């Protein structure tokens, strides 16, 4: 694995191009360590029947491409043009105005011109023009067309796996051209010839078999939650009693497995458990599933079909258990998938009912066909109806800012609910600058399956714009906690913050909720879920 250069080195970024240089079509990509992810291992691609499993190394010359890879790629492109109007339009109408160019976190953090969203798309567009347009066919390079060569393929691969599908560029595009759509379909094309990355293929294989990306088997999953139950008891004196795979429950709860796996996501998972316990006496009847134990969907970073296969488990499990509806945990791309794809892929879920909060009676009209709501909307509704006894002063040691996940922001518009919940459970909340939040939010730099270890430099570069905005509120207001509603954020921000903004912690929203939540019969709380003293309790002995 490549050593990650120091922040001061990485910060030397040149976004400008020399006046005279060769045209971009003439330069082949240099695949750099620290930027690319390892190729998928055959055991993972085999496990889900992806084509052309093989051991391969992107830095070697020979990628062991199938003999007819060109025709597979070209056919695949044609097939997708026929199936996706989006692709056709996005291939045809870009005027290369450059409005998207400096909106991409990877371009901002790297200065690599092919990370300008327009260029990322042009890599494929040039092939498209050569194959499908009169200008490209007749005039070649002068018509913007480019031959599909091995170098061109490698370059596309390199840059499609340097895009986190965050859609920030699509916000600024005067025609709404969405690079995420181009990347998603471009990755499908690379997958057709066996060019997956292992950090995606591994979780996909795991999720298919064990129900979650991390490969946690059912007994281990229960063990992990049991561990949280003990931890919660240590902190609060209250023993929560979650259950699993219970038929006849009213609600199925699905959350990203990252929440049960690693800090600080685990504290968010504890938050869920405490909230559910609190609501139990008020009529909440909820169960966890070890089979549908993944909210996220790395299939979405592979192909639409793989995403659909993994997503199918949620409704399948909901039907088997006979629940009325599903609540989903805090996760970013999970919610783009649930909002924009799930019903289309695997619906209609007519065996479920439109979600109604058993505590407030609120009908979630905006989820009446998918029958799946976000836990944060559920909680926001509870707080609005004064159903939670909260002591926000327990979070007084924190100055908090909120990171909008790309997917919940630009693939859903879930902006106010998390803020409402956050402001209800803490007293010190500061927004980052407006051009870095809400619909203009910056990606964590590690989304869409790029949160591997070997591409750490890429991740630190891509996360720079976000980190820079955090740094701004850190310095201006003394903000020390970055709250988010995404499991990948929770997994990757600690490293990113250490790199660019030392002294920042990262939390999920429901960890903050749980710290503020006053449970019936709890002991005097002296620490938060992390075992750190609560404000004013620094001197208390933990007995």
């Amino acid at each position, binding site marked *: 694995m490549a050593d990650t250069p120091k922040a001061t080195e990485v910060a030397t970024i040149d976004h400008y191009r*020399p006046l005279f240089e060769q045209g971009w079509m003439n330069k082949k990509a240099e695949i750099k360590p620290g930027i690319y992810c390892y190729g998928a291992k055959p055991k993972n691609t085999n496990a889900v029947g992806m084509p052309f499993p093989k051991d391969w190394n992107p830095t070697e010359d020979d990628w062991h491409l199938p003999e007819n890879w060109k025709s597979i790629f070209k056919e695949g492109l044609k097939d997708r043009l026929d199936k996706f109007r989006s692709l056709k339009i996005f291939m045809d109408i870009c005027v290369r105005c450059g409005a998207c160019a400096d909106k991409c976190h990877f371009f901002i953090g790297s200065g690599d011109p092919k990370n300008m969203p327009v260029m990322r798309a042009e890599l494929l567009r040039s092939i498209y023009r050569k194959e499908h347009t009169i*200008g490209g066919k007749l005039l070649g390079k002068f018509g913007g067309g480019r031959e599909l060569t091995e170098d061109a393929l490698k370059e596309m691969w390199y840059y499609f796996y340097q895009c986190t599908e965050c859609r920030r560029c699509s916000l600024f595009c005067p025609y709404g051209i969405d690079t995420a759509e181009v990347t998603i379909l471009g990755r499908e094309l690379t997958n057709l010839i066996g060019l997956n990355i292992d950090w995606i293929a591994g979780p996909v294989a795991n999720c298919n078999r064990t129900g979650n990306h991390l490969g946690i088997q059912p007994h281990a999953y229960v063990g992990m939650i049991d561990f949280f139950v003990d931890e919660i008891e240590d902190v609060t004196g209250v023993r929560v009693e979650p259950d699993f795979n219970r038929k006849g429950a009213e609600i199925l709860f699905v959350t990203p497995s990252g929440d049960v796996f690693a800090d600080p996501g685990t504290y968010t998972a504890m938050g869920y458990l405490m909230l559910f316990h609190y609501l139990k006496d008020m009529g909440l009847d909820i169960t966890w599933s070890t089979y549908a134990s993944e909210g996220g969907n790395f299939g979405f970073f592979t192909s639409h079909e793989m995403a659909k296969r993994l997503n199918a488990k949620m409704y*399948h499990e909901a039907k088997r258990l006979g629940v009325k509806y599903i609540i989903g945990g805090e996760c970013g791309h999970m919610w783009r998938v649930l909002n924009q794809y799930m019903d289309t892929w695997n619906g209609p879920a007519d065996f479920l009912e439109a979600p109604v909060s058993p505590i407030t009676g609120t009908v979630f009209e905006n989820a009446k066909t998918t029958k799946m709501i976000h836990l944060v909307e559920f909680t*926001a509704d509870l707080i609005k109806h004064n159903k939670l006894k909260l002591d926000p002063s327990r979070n007084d040691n924190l100055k908090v800012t909120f990171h909008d996940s790309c997917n919940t922001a630009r693939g859903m518009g879930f902006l106010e609910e998390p803020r409402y919940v956050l402001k209800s459970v803490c007293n010190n909340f500061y927004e980052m600058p407006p051009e870095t939040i809400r619909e203009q939010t910056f990606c964590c730099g590690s989304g869409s399956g790029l949160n591997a270890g070997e591409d750490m430099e890429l991740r630190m570069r891509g996360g720079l714009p976000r980190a820079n905005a955090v740094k701004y509120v850190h310095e201006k207001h003394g903000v020390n906690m970055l709250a988010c509603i995404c499991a990948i954020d929770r997994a990757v921000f600690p490293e990113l913050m250490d790199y660019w903004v030392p002294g920042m912690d990262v939390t999920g929203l429901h960890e903050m909720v749980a710290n503020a939540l006053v449970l019936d019969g709890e002991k005097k709380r002296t620490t938060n879920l992390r075992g750190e003293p609560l404000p004013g309790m620094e001197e208390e002995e933990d007995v």
Partner: protein
Amino acid sequence: MNFVLSLVFSSLAVLVVVLIPWIGVGALNLKILFGVVIPYAALATFIVGIIVRVLDWGRSPVPYRIPTTAGQMWSFPWIKSNPIDNPKGTGGVVVRMLFEVLTFRSLFRNTRLEYSKVDGVPRINYEWEKWLWLAALLFHYSFLVIFLRHFRFFMEPVPGFVTLLESLDGFLQMGAAPFNGFGLPGVYLTDMLLMAAVTWLLLRRILYSQIRYLSLPADYFPLLLILSLGTTGILMRYLLRVDITKVKELVIGIFKFSPVVPDGIGVIFYIHLFILCVLITYFPFSKLMHFAGIFLSPTRNLSNNNRFVRHVNPWNYPVKFHTYEEYEDEFRDAMIEVGLPVDKGAKTAEEGEKE
């Protein structure tokens, strides 16, 4: 291809476009070809080309509803949603599209990255940048006004709105230029704006290093073509005047499908006309189709209502997924051990008999 080559290639192409009618009419006197045949062919290509292109786009379905949401979604009654940037239904989409098409709303969001490093620490700013938006808006609207003004050559009598437009367009200039009236007709504001905007759109492609990097001949060519279209138009109006009555005779003849080619129209007119013909012929095969594509762009023209209105993918197909049954078959023993309920396996004798 670097920008020099792209520019040279595009400029040569435009030069050829100018020379063809110059020689064709000026030297070879092919007036019918350039005054009638080519305009008809160009117009046909333009109309048919656009229709074919749009139908071709329409042939591909919209499998998923994927709007880019740019504001708060429709949610609880107590949360203010943004019905335009995050539309929940057709009304919102129509307003969003109108804003997009008429005011270039997304482009208006544009900012410019200012990156610097102070003491080894990166500093990132997003600066005000509306020049692209402004130039784009001025260019498109000026083009529209100029196109509408040209109706005075297409219609007899000249429609009222054209006269009005002309006087508005000219009136604004009167106030601005006190030196009007040296035997020259009044200067139209839109002529100036169009030329200025197009020049800026061209210059930024050369001056801004990022835009220079990504520009292709297909970006320079239409700009240069429009510049020469504007230049010939302005030349004709102010310096190389042509007989307007005869031009009008020719143009009306074309639109009435009884073409006539009057003598005595200057070559400059044929050059102007030919550039226009090339532009509209090129149109359906180029990025200029963005004018139609924007209406079909799935990130803009769809509602964010997937969770409450089902969207059907016409080619949705069943997939094989790992079922609960298969999962339980693999993990049953371990599940039983930790007390997880299972569907099969730990059956009582009674249940076994029922099966």
